[in-house]
């Protein structure tokens, strides 16, 4: 790390840009500014300048700058993608249109399947073929590539994806296609599947590469603009970008692999939640990030957010490592409804920010989760929400009574409580999917509540699942921006290498890993001005012969030995037993994919919190309904100091959230202003 003082994380969301700075006295300062969707770099720079001013620092003092951005995510969701072509083997041009051939809506004959992002007439085949060993069956026909380029020339194509069969073993043909395209279509960006996803299964490789290509022009321009403005301001360190895999990478790398940013927003929240939980000694945690429309749930084991190796964007599969986040349509704006059979549902439909919950008084008439909180006194009409919207209890009561109370014959308080129970049941099921369905016991975890709405639901959710502790960071609303500063530089490399484990020659495997390490070292060197603390870790994807779903197990550092391979096989068998409760009759295993994680450690931060003290203390009591009306303690978060204890039946308010501490829970203020709540301790 450079010896400069300020470390800055800036997370640009759809509505707000959250920015945090940690200076070397260990103090954290935050700034929240409006995002500027038309020219995103403007909001980014606004946040940067405000932070520097608050910290009394100069641009030249910035020692590290990390950025989380939803530009790629939003471009995918809104289909603002470059006009992209696909070049593949002759006879396979429909690889994207055919996909897996499976239907998204099995019982819906009326809704068309999603269109692939590359129209069929921009998908072209070229002659040339490799076999399953990467040997040439038919040489690449350069003329057919030139003919394809000619067909694309007048079609305003901005980007070209290239996916040839078995390029994950031998990329000669793909590289040759790129050379010819550079001659024939100068200025058109090209993305090769052997660079983006060197793994088998042609459809997923094609879809990931096509999405990557389609983001290249937009992300290249955006990252170029931010890099220039930051440099123009006088910041001398390279900009690092949050990636979906839970690491950061230099902006220069992100410009080649923008698909790696496609779901980086929720990832930063999980990393932030994980890091903040660790401050109070919780290394096994469930991060629960609840906002206006969705709740994102992440799983943290031994301090590490858990990963998976595939996801989806624009209705197409992506094969890239990512933080395992489960997103469900449950937020403060989720709408409650009762159907004609008396069944109460909450979400996934949301009232959004406009008109928003009925209590906002912006014309919304649907009863939402936020309205239920207002009815029950968890949210107080006196204390406006973060975005400055006042709350109207009468409107909330009217909506809850009409939508739920009358149809079910419940009083307005019971109706509001029922809305929360259903919302909590939905989120509890999602937590079960993240734990029980993955073989973990939720009672072994702490629940880390972040996002504007998370701290209102956390204790009730913990009760549902038997989770013993709830952790609420000092600033739950900016956890993602804080997460940026706790994120290491990370590159995930992999390569399909399908072999029966019993037949592997250790020296061959060693050569493969050595190649991956060389590639990784090149990538890490681009961040040398920030840190030189590099480390590699190796993993193998393995399966029982005949299975299709691999499990990933750790593998010893090089040089590769027969003992290391045997240990990996044993670890695989153990993991299979843990997940599926049995050892199969078939016991031969295969190695499927080699994985290398290359990390450059970002030095740790002293998270002592600076108090801005911008809001006056609101101490006192408040009427809250929890099975009956009672008077609860109401306090401002800024009134709490380290080691203060908090009793059950307390509401804590702060600028970015409200914390509800129901009966049966109590807590104390731990390190860095973090609230640690425990069940059954009062």
């Amino acid at each position: 790390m450079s010896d400069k003082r300020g470390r800055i994380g800036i997370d640009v969301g759809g509505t707000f840009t959250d920015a945090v700075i940690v200076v070397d006295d260990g103090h954290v300062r935050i700034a929240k500014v409006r995002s500027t969707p038309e020219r995103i770099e403007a909001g980014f720079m606004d946040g940067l300048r405000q932070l520097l001013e608050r910290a009394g620092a100069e641009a030249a003092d910035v020692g590290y700058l990390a950025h989380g951005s939803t530009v790629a995510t939003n471009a995918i969701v809104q289909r603002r993608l470059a006009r992209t072509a696909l070049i593949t083997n002759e006879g396979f041009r429909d690889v994207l249109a055919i996909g897996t051939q499976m239907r998204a809506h099995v019982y819906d004959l009326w809704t068309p399947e999603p269109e692939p992002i590359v129209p069929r007439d921009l998908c072209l085949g070229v002659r040339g073929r490799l076999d399953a060993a990467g040997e040439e069956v038919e040489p690449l026909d350069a003329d057919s590539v030139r003919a394809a380029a000619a067909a694309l020339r007048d079609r305003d194509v901005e980007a070209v994806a290239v996916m040839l069969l078995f390029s994950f073993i031998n990329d000669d043909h793909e590289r040759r296609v790129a050379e010819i395209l550079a001659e024939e279509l100068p200025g058109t960006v090209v993305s090769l599947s052997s660079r983006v996803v060197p793994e088998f299964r042609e459809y997923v490789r094609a879809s990931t590469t096509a999405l990557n290509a389609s983001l290249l022009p937009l992300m290249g321009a955006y990252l170029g603009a931010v890099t220039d403005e930051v440099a123009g301001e006088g910041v001398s360190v390279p900009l690092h970008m949050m990636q979906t895999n839970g690491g950061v990478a230099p902006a220069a790398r992100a410009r080649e692999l923008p698909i790696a940013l496609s779901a980086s927003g929720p990832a930063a929240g999980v990393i932030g939640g994980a890091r903040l939980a660790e401050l109070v000694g919780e290394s096994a945690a469930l991060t629960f990030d609840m906002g206006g429309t969705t709740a994102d749930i992440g799983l943290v084991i031994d301090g590490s957010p858990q990963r998976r190796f595939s996801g989806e964007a624009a209705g197409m599969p992506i094969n890239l490592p990512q933080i395992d986040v489960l997103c469900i349509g449950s937020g403060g704006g989720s709408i409650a409804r009762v159907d004609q059979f008396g069944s109460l549902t909450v979400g996934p439909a949301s009232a959004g920010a406009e008109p928003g919950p009925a209590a906002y008084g912006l014309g919304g008439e649907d009863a939402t989760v936020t309205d239920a909180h207002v009815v029950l006194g968890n949210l107080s009409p006196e204390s406006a929400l973060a975005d400055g919207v006042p709350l109207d209890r009468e409107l909330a009561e009217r909506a809850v009574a009409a939508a739920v109370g009358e149809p079910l014959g419940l009083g307005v308080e019971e109706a509001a409580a029922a809305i929360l129970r259903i919302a909590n049941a939905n989120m509890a099921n999602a937590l079960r999917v993240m734990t029980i369905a993955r073989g973990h016991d939720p009672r072994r975890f702490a629940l880390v509540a972040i996002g504007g709405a998370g701290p209102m639901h956390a204790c009730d959710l913990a009760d549902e699942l038997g989770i013993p502790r709830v952790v609420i960071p000092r600033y739950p609303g900016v956890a993602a921006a804080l997460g940026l500063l706790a994120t290491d530089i990370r590159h995930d490399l992999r390569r399909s290498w399908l072999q029966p484990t019993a037949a592997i020659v250790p020296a061959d495997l060693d050569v493969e890993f050595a190649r991956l390490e060389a590639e990784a070292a090149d990538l890490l060197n681009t961040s040398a001005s920030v840190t030189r603390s590099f480390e590699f870790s190796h993993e193998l994807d393995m399966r029982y012969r005949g299975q299709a779903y691999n499990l990933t197990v750790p593998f010893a550092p090089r040089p590769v030995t027969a003992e290391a391979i045997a240990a990996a096989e044993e670890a695989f068998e153990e993991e299979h037993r843990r997940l599926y409760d049995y050892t199969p009759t078939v016991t031969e295993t295969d190695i499927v994919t080699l994985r290398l994680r290359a990390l450059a450690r970002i030095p740790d931060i002293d998270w002592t919190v600076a108090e801005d003290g911008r809001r006056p203390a609101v101490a006192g009591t408040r009427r809250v309904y929890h099975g009956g009306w009672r008077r609860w303690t109401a306090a401002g978060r800024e009134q709490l100091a380290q080691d203060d204890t908090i009793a059950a039946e307390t509401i804590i308010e702060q600028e970015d959230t409200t914390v509800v501490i129901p009966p049966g829970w109590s807590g104390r203020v731990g390190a860095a202003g973090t609230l640690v709540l425990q069940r059954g301790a009062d």
Partner: protein
Amino acid sequence: MSAATTIDPITMEILASGFHHIAEEMAVVEYRSSYSPIIREMLDFNCGLFTGDGRMVANSEQIPAQLGLMQFALEAAREKWSDDIAEGDAVLTNHPYMGGTHTPDLQVFTPLYRDGRIIAWAGSIAHHIDIGGRFPGTESAQCTELFQEGLIFPAVKLVERGTRVRALYDLIGANVRDPASTLGDLDAQLAACRRGIARVGELADAHGTDTVLQGMETLLHTTALRAEAAFRSWPGRTVAAEGFLDDEGFEGTSPVRVHAAVHVDDGTLVVDLSGSSQQITSGMNVPISSAHAGTYFAVRAFLGPEVPQNAGLTSRVRVIAPEGTVFNPIFPAALSARHLAVQRLSDVLIEALCELLPERSVAASHVSFPALVFQAVDSRSGRLTLLADILGGGGGARRDAPGDDGIDPYCSNCAILPAEIAELEYPWRIERTELVEGSGGAGRMRGGMGLRRDYRLLADVSDGMYYVEQTVPEFAARGREGGGAGSPGKATVQRAGSAEPAPVTGKGYIHLYRGDVLSLVGAGGGGFGAAPSGDAPAQSATIEEEP
């Protein structure tokens, strides 16, 4: 929570969602640890949760072809064993005449005991790659009696009080072509069932056994009310439709008639298949349980997602199929290739329901179901391999949108085998996988395009079965409201060294030799609405193919 006499709506909602999640979690355990590509890649399996007396409470919703039919097999198993089921037992069944489907669909059931009685069952059904019999892959239109269709398990105990029945495992291992897959998949099915009963046990611990039982009853009751209300809102008239299978499975045989008459009777939907052909002497008969699954698919498509699949729904659907007809054959009629007629049944029922509810009209999707299973020794490993694959065709066009290209419609929803997996794991080269230009029916909205895939054999010899149904133009996927029909499916073989591919019969068992290419083509979907007059059909932009 105490055992209340009436369950409150909130607890009810929590339990209903809990039942559904348990079935889904069972499914995850099953496919992630299964072996045969039919289960792990094509997801031809299902997991379910049942009441103590065998009614389905929730299922995992992978393939609709197995929709709601496990309760038939469970009913037969419970009848056979009566009280002689102990804690830790698992029952294995596939007998088509004891509530089963076709023999490759193995079903495993395990009971959950509480306080000395069975309070629930977990079940799993999965299509195994091969269960022995005359043909590789077991399934073939060209079987002529059940005894050619592999091993038959008449609800036998696979596990007794927690101990596996060794003799049964040995017999299975000795009688199937790919014992590693079959035994591995049985492991996965048992693991899924064990997970299911463990989770229901946890629900009972948390809410009380009585509350959970009451939750099951309430869910079934409410679902029945929902289905009934929907059916009552439909017009009261009787509608009928019919369609045909190309032949009985052998060249030169007659088309097979599939006829359905549908009406609502006092809140119950009655589906009368009496007008269908008599049973036939080939593997294309349909066990009665599968006739129900084909019916449930069409019904659910028109009911929408508000009515979940469970015994509450199926109690409001009545299927009439006289004994001795193609949808209720008499033992020991063959029926391993039942899927072709099940798809046609869904197609015919959808046509009938489109007539009943014309505002929801949609053109016919293909029901050609190109599929193959071939065995060959892979010289790279020296092992016998069984390649299985299923291809899509065109979906039906809608009033406001074209049909989907290359889908496996209706009761089926199988994935295509990735070409790279086909070549890495089997001695075959996939030479092309592409949509067939012009195969979708013409119309204001065009039908979806069919799919063609060419398989070249890289081993010395291979034998196996394939089928492509709907090869006869007059039985092609129909358009609606003036839309044209899709083009038919076909199969060809190009022998090594010959200049041209030669057409072969739609359903066959053949030998291939090194360098031969088998090509299967799925049919196109029907178009919707008349094409603008004088114009060419509203096809997608055509692209010049390289010569």
